[in-house]
């Protein structure tokens, strides 16, 4: 055997083997790279999809609490009504003085009333929720003030002071303070706060709410028909505007 030739062929073989190895490594590197791209892009796409779905879900108006067959509600002589009786539209609110969402709607409603006052009748009904420990008492405070003709002033004070009295252990003192501020007969207010009539009035509102499918506060009825809570002032304003226009 020619040593020269054998040397060459050995070198060739080695080169060949090295070439194969490099090709295999390159192939593996490429495959690993592809796998990494696939991993990270699927993670990013997955996260993006989930975020998109969640955001969409959370910005949809809540579908709860709207009965399949909308029940019409009527105003009763026992209702607290603000506005002229000849008004074009009637807005009934089932509300809870300690409910933060109701507190958020309070300035919106006040502004709406200012704007539509002559064409809008506003009714407040109690729907104190279990989880709000002072809601029932606050409702009775409003009733007690109502017996002295100052329900709406008390209604405003209760919502404006919500953040303060809601966290107190004995908010009675604050409610009596409000009564004093409104110039009410304090003895009478105190008595009415605990009276059977007051409790009954609140309870009757709550029962009437249960009957028409109220399960959250605030719940609004526009001309007797339940509506989904408008998300802001403008939405609410448009809704009322439409109702008023459809009447005329």
């Amino acid at each position, binding site marked *: 055997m020619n040593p020269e030739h054998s040397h060459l062929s050995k070198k060739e073989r080695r080169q060949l083997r090295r070439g194969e190895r490099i090709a295999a490594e390159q192939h593996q590197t490429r495959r690993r790279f592809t796998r990494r791209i696939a991993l*990270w892009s699927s993670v990013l796409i997955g996260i993006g999809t989930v975020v998109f779905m969640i955001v969409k879900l959370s910005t*949809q108006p*809540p579908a709860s609490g709207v009965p399949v067959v909308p029940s019409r509600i009527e105003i009763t002589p026992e209702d607290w009504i603000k506005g002229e009786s000849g008004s074009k539209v009637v807005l009934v609110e089932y509300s809870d003085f300690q409910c933060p969402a109701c507190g958020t709607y309070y300035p919106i409603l006040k502004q709406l009333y200012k704007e539509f006052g002559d064409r809008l009748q506003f009714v407040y009904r109690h729907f104190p929720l279990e989880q709000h420990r002072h809601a029932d008492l606050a409702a009775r405070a409003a009733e007690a003030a109502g017996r002295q003709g100052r329900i709406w002033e008390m209604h405003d004070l209760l919502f404006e002071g919500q953040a303060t009295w809601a966290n107190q252990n004995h908010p009675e003192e604050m409610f009596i303070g409000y009564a004093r501020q409104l110039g009410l007969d304090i003895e009478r207010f105190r008595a009415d706060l605990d009276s059977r009539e007051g409790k009954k009035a609140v309870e009757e509102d709550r029962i009437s709410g249960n009957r028409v499918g109220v399960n959250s506060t*605030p719940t609004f009825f526009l001309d007797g028909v339940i509506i989904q809570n408008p*998300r802001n002032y403008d939405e609410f304003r448009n809704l009322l505007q439409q109702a008023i226009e459809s009447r005329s």
Partner: protein
Amino acid sequence: MNSEISSNRPSRAVPNWIIASFLVISFIGFADATYLTAKHYSGTPLECSVFESCEKVTTSRYATVLGIPVALLGAIYYLAIFLSLIAYLDLRREGILSFTALFTIVGLLASAWFVYLQLFVIQAICPYCMVSAVASTVLFLLGMLALKKKRVSC
């Protein structure tokens, strides 16, 4: 050379189920916190329900830190955990796992603080916040378990 081999191979010390749970729980936490963040910004949930505590917690003054909603911080936290786990699966560097495991203490402490606020200060429970608290706690436990397994193997 030795380190190269071990870094390219799945960790033998930390079982796969720990990694899988880590991924699942952090993703649940992320989805939960994202939902709360979206709610925070959209401002839709303007109602208090008979069935659950209302938006008191998410609208309280504790819901933001320097103007940033806590829910958003939570979402970023869970996402960071989730992505570092993916990075660990990709690069197989043990350090990433150790760091992530230690990092879960942050979530645990934050959650403990928010549960305390809900129970004793705001006195209202927000179900989605509680889901997050549970997720953080489980992540912490998984993290400690991962660290322990690693130490034993060393």
